Structure formats: C-alpha cells, structure tokens
C-alpha cells in the first residue's frame, strides 16, 4: 500500500493530538528500553567482572615436575627457564606467575645461636600478592627491592620473635645466608609458617642453581577458558605437569554457574515482564482509540488500512522510545557498574540495537489489541455505547 500524504498526515495528527498521552506512551516505552539496555549491558559486564573477582582466591593453576614423590622434601625440581616461557597475558588479563623453590632449612634471629627448622620459599616472578592472597603487615617498602630482603609468615615471625626490619640467619647443610625482613604476611595457610626469600638465596641454600619446585599461576577467565589455558600450557611445557587446583577451579566453576544463572534468570524475568508491563500500559491507551477507529470506518477506511495506520504509529513510537531509552540505559549501566564493581561498566554497542529492536517489537505487539477494533460498529460508538 502506497503511503499517501494523507496517511502521514493522519499519523502526525495521531501522535500530536494529545501530548499527555504521547508522553505516557513514550515514558512507558523509554523506561522499558532503558531498563532493558542497562540490565543487558550490566549482565554482560558482571559475568566478566566476576571472573576477575575470583582471583582473590589466589593461584588456580600449578606447574609442577612430572614425577612428584613426597618421599623427599627437596625432591624433583623444574628448570627456572620455564618461568620465561609462560604467557604473560591471557584473554586481555595479565597472568601473575611466580616460581617457588622450597627448602627446609634452619633459621634463627640474627645474634641468636639456637636454630630451628622452617620452610624457606624462594620466589621469583610477578604478582606474588595475587598468587598468595593475604595481609601484609609492618610493610617496609624501601627494603622490598633489596635482593637480600625477605618476608616472614605470621606464625614464623612469632616463633622466631622477629618483626619487619630484623635480620634472619638462614642455613642449610653448611650453606648460609642472611636476610632482612621487609614484611610479615598473614594468609591463614601454610604460608604463615614459611620465610619468603629471593629465588637466588633459596637456590644457593639448597645448592640447586637454576631450579624451582613449582610455578603457581592465577589465570582470570570463565571455568571453561581456564581449562583451555591449562591444556594449552600443558602442550607447550611437555616436561612439566600442568594442572588446575581442584579446590578452587571446581568451586569457582560451580559458583560462577550459579551466579551467572541467577543473573541471567533475573534479567530475563525483568525484561519479559517489563515488556509485558509496557504492553499492558499501551493496550490501555489503545482501547481508547475506539472513537478514532469508529470515525475512520464511518468515512470508509478499510480495517487493513486502519490497522496499518496504528502499526506505523506503534513503530514510530517504538523507535523514539527505544532510541532515547536505550541510550539512557547504557549511560546508567556505566554508572551502575561503578557502583557494583568499582569499575565503570564498558558500554557494549551490541546491546544498543538489541534493546531498540526489542522495544519496537514490544510496541508493535502492544498495538495488536487494535485488531479487536475490526468488529467495531461505528454507529454504536458514536451513539456512545461501548
């Protein structure tokens, strides 16, 4: 059907006849679009952020020697060069990786002669704080860069009666070293009983130059992408055993599924019911059009033509409400992301067209009750009967 100038004129009149009503319809559509786009955007963002939040759990992947026997404390080791073969980035997130060499040595506070055994962990790599989440107390930043400095676990510090700034004597089978404590670390795990030194110091003490016991990595990603990271790395490092830490990978997977499930479900629910609400609100307005339809039919308009008219109106309204509402929603979601995760949510452009289209569909769907108007008899409408 060719759209005559008359057609557009009627449309214009329909839209501008009652500004109050136009405002109500646009408000309903716009609000629906805003909620749609804000929630869609936030949901995509939240799922990504969650995987980052999980990294508070610390390392989730371990690279260890192939044959691990627990018979011997200073058992099998890996070559230090493996550290440089690790990817520094995965899916746009950096991958903290730290190599550890564990030595059971003897330790005493400087000036004391009573030595006690303790685990010395030599570390090298970047992101120790991400690998080993905990709290650092008595932190002396100026000492940290010193190669002869070390960190003491909270329990170890208590045992040796030392605090940051004190010097520890380390020895193992006749080899000796000193280190100055720059922080006391509290994790609640076995790290609390260990002394963290530079890798070189531990290697000298253990007489294992260039060797490490294992590498811990903290990989950000959904459970599936962490699994594929593990298998890719395992292929790259055939001489080592690469595996996820079951305790964290499994729980992370389960919790991630639950949370993303509840997010998707609530968002879907809200979207579905938002559109239903918009529809109900619109239909209410539509019924009121009875008089208009009666008049159009009385002067000879076919019902197809009338419905066509109202559909065009609905599409125009949907576009207007959708374009404005979705843009507002996207802006709102940026701020919401900041409120929830402390980082502004990145607006994803794909959300915009989706939410505009959804709004138009809702708008068209809400014009459908007008089909009922086909049965209207103009005469009874004009007489004021229902």
């Amino acid at each position, binding site marked *: 059907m060719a759209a005559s100038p008359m057609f557009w004129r009627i449309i214009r009149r329909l839209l501008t006849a009652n500004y109050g009503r136009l405002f*109500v319809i646009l408000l309903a559509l716009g609000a629906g679009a805003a909620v749609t786009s804000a929630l869609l955007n936030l949901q995509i963002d939240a799922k990504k952020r969650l995987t980052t939040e999980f990294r508070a759990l610390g390392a989730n992947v371990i690279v260890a020697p192939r044959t691990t026997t627990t018979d011997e404390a200073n058992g099998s080791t890996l070559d230090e060069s493996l550290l440089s073969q690790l990817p520094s980035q995965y899916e746009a997130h950096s991958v903290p990786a730290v190599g550890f060499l564990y030595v059971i040595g003897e330790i005493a506070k400087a000036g004391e002669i009573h030595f006690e055994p303790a685990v010395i962990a030599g570390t090298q790599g970047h992101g120790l704080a991400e690998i080993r989440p905990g709290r650092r107390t008595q932190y002396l930043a100026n000492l940290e860069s010193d190669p002869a400095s070390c960190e003491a676990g909270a329990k170890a510090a208590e045992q040796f009666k030392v605090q940051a700034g004190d010097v520890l004597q380390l020895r193992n089978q006749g080899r000796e070293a000193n280190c100055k404590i720059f922080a006391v670390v509290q994790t609640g795990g076995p790290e609390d009983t260990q002394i963290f030194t530079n890798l070189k110091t531990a290697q000298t003490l253990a007489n294992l130059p260039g060797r490490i*016991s294992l590498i811990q990595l903290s990989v950000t990603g959904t459970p599936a992408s962490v699994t594929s990271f593990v298998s890719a790395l395992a292929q790259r490092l055939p001489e080592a055993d690469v595996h996820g830490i079951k305790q964290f990978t499994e729980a992370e997977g389960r919790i991630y599924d639950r949370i993303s499930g509840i997010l998707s479900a609530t968002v879907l629910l809200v979207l579905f019911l938002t559109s239903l609400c918009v529809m109900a609100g619109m239909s209410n307005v539509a019924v009121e059009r009875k008089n208009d339809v009666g008049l159009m039919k009385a002067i000879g308009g076919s019902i197809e033509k009338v419905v066509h008219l109202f559909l065009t109106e609905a599409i125009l309204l949907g576009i207007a409400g959708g374009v404005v509402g979705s843009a507002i929603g996207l802006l709102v979601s940026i701020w919401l992301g900041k409120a929830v995760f402390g980082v502004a949510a990145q607006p994803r452009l794909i959300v915009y067209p989706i939410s505009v289209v959804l709004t138009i569909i809702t708008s068209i769907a809400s014009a459908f009750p007008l089909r009922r108007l086909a049965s209207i008899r103009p005469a009874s409408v004009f007489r004021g009967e229902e």
Partner: protein
Amino acid sequence: MFLRLVADSFTRRPRRKILSMAALAMGMAVATAALSVSLDVGDRLAEEFRSLGANLLVTPQADSLPLEIGGVDYRPANAGAYLPEANLGKLKTIFWRFNIMAFAPILQSPGQLLPGNVTDHKPSDYTDIQILGTWSNHSVPVPDGTTYVTGIEKTNPWWTVDGRWFHEGQTECVVGSLLAKRKGLHIGDKILLNVPDPSKMVQLFLPYMVTGILSTGSSEEDAVVVSLADAQKLARLPQVYRRLYVSALTKPEDAFARKDPKTMTPAEFDKWYCTPYISAIALQISEELKGTDVRVIRRVAEGEGNVLSRVRTLLWLVTFAALLAAALAVGASAAASVIERRTEIGLMKALGANSGLVGVLLAAEQLLLAFVGGGIGYAVGILLARALGERIFGFTPEPKLFVLLVILALAALITLIGSAYPLLRASRYDPAPILRGE
C-alpha cells in the same frame, strides 16, 4: 453513593479495569519475585561458597613450626604439639554454633605401606607414604547431649571418592589416586599399614581394606586416608589431632569487621561479637578450645567476601530495576486510565461534585485497583520466585509476610503517584467544554 460509584466503575467496564490490573499485577509480580529471591539468595550463595572448603584453621598454640610443603608436613612424627579430640563437640556450643557448617580434625603421620598379599616381608618392600587420619560421616557428641554428624567430605567437598568413604571402626581406608595407580591398588584390595616405631625391633603392620580411591588435586592423592581413631592407633597417639579445619558461614567483612577488637568500645565489641564475622567466629572458637591458634584462611574468606558482597549489590540493583520498571509501567497505566475518563469527570462536576470529591473518588478507585492488583501480583510473584529458586539453587524461597506488605504499599504508592498529576488536572477541568466534546 460513593461506594456505588466506585463499584460501578469496576462492573461497568470490566475489560478496561482488568487491563490496568494486569499491568499492576505483572509489575508487582516481578517485584515480588525479585525481592523474594534477593532476600534469600545471599544466604544460599554463602552456603554455595562453602564448596571452597574450610575458612578457619585451628592448630595447637604451643606448636613447633610446621615444615609444610605442598600439604605434606615434613616434621618428624614426634615433633610438635597435639590437641585433644574430646573437646571438639564444644564447637557446636559457641554463640554462632549454627553457622559452623562442618569441621574435621586431621592427624598426619609418615608411615609405610605393604600390599596385603605379602606374608613374609622385608624392609625393601615398604613404600613410604603419608597416613592421614580424619573423620568421615562421624558423630560428634555435643556437650548439650545431642550429636552432630560431620566429616572431611563436608569441609573439603572437592575431595571425590571413587567407591565409598571408609566406615569408622571397620579397619577400612581410602587410597589416593596417584598412590593407587603407582601400586596397582583397587577397591576391595587389602593393604598393610604401619607408622614406624623406632623403639621396637619388629614393626607391627595392621591390615586395612581399600574402599575407595580418592582424588583431591593435591598431595592427598599420594596418601592413605583412614579414620582418625585408626590413625591415632597406628601413630600411637591416642585421642589427639594436629589440625582442625572449620567451615563456617560468615558475613563478608566490612570496615567495621576490620577494626581491632581490642580497640573497640564495649558496645562495639558486643556488636562485633554478635555478628557472624569470620574473625568473631575465630575468637569464639579459640575461647572454647583452649590452647589453640585459630587462623582465618584468607584466600578463602576474602575471595568469598569479595564475590558475595558484589553479587549482593548486583542483585539488589536488579531488584531495584525491576521495581522501577514496574513502577513506571503501573504509573503510566494509572495515568492513562485517568486521562481517558475526562467525560465522566466533567459530568460529575456538572452535577455538582467539587474537585476534592472527584479526586478522592478516583483515588479510592485507584487504591482498590492497587490492592487487588498488588495481591494478585504477589501470588504470581511467589510462584515465579519458587520456579526461579528451584531452577537455579534447588531451593524454594519462603513466602514472607514482609514482602507482601512491601508490595502492597508499593503498589498503592505507585498508583497514587502515577495518577496524581492527571488527577490534579482532572479536578481542575471545566466541565462545559468536556461535555461539549472539545
């Protein structure tokens, strides 16, 4: 007459009223569902986080420094201090006893293993292994006369056993998967275990039956796990354990929780003590179990706290969005329903009703609509929340009276706000032009 007018407006044009009511009910249904789920989901998620394992570790205070690497303690068997097993029931008597979800003591000793079919054995046949003693499905007597069933499968839910856990008192054991592979052990095999006693010439091996193969992803895969009582017997250390893992439901730490309890005022301390912060639970445990050091396993506790508080905010936000969307839609439909009744208003005014009466009449109508619509919406919303809760968490949120009140109040408020402006305008209409149809 007033009531008749209101009743008439409902019976005369039922379709229109049903439409407004449907909009209201839908909106309130989302609001109810979102609200019910958000109220319950925090607790559910916190429980879900217990699959990360224990968040508290209890060790003897007077212990020598553990030489722990990769989960294996390399201290000689006789070094270090132990804790009495008999006290453990007291854990269920602390202030936050219902927040203690599980606990399991562990006694680990270096030992030796022999295949069960060897009768005449020499030292070269021995395999050095770690023997872990712990609880599985163990009934702990609580001082108040009840018993509490707990065990390692609850504190460490990622430990999976192919076969089944040992039954206590039945000389059964579970073998780590790596060890089983190395030694060719299968479910149903017999093995002999011993913790070497340097004071004896002849070592006494005890027979155990393998009931399951354990995979944990860490060093336990290379160990044998027996019941705590058996481990105590093997290691000749009756009634003691060395480490205790406690899994507690906690409230994520906030700024208040990070304050040092020693610097708090008595009122603050009471508030802190009576909030299930992990640090408060740790203090309560160390008060009950004398001579212990209770440490918070930071990576678990903080990881949980971070994610949980984020997700909670997010859910409240979604709930708020649902409420907002519902409010706008309901408000819009309320506004529309007033606008369309201009003729009626005009007629009423022409017949002598003043603006106030017209306003009250329409507001009463809208309120009636709000209560009925809100009530229906609440019922639908509860069903929705149930479906949602079951699908995602396998639980049904309890219908709460509180939610019903909130929803009804909200419905009334929104309808009134939504219709306030049109009502105001309506009450100012000049009847003559309206009745003329202008």
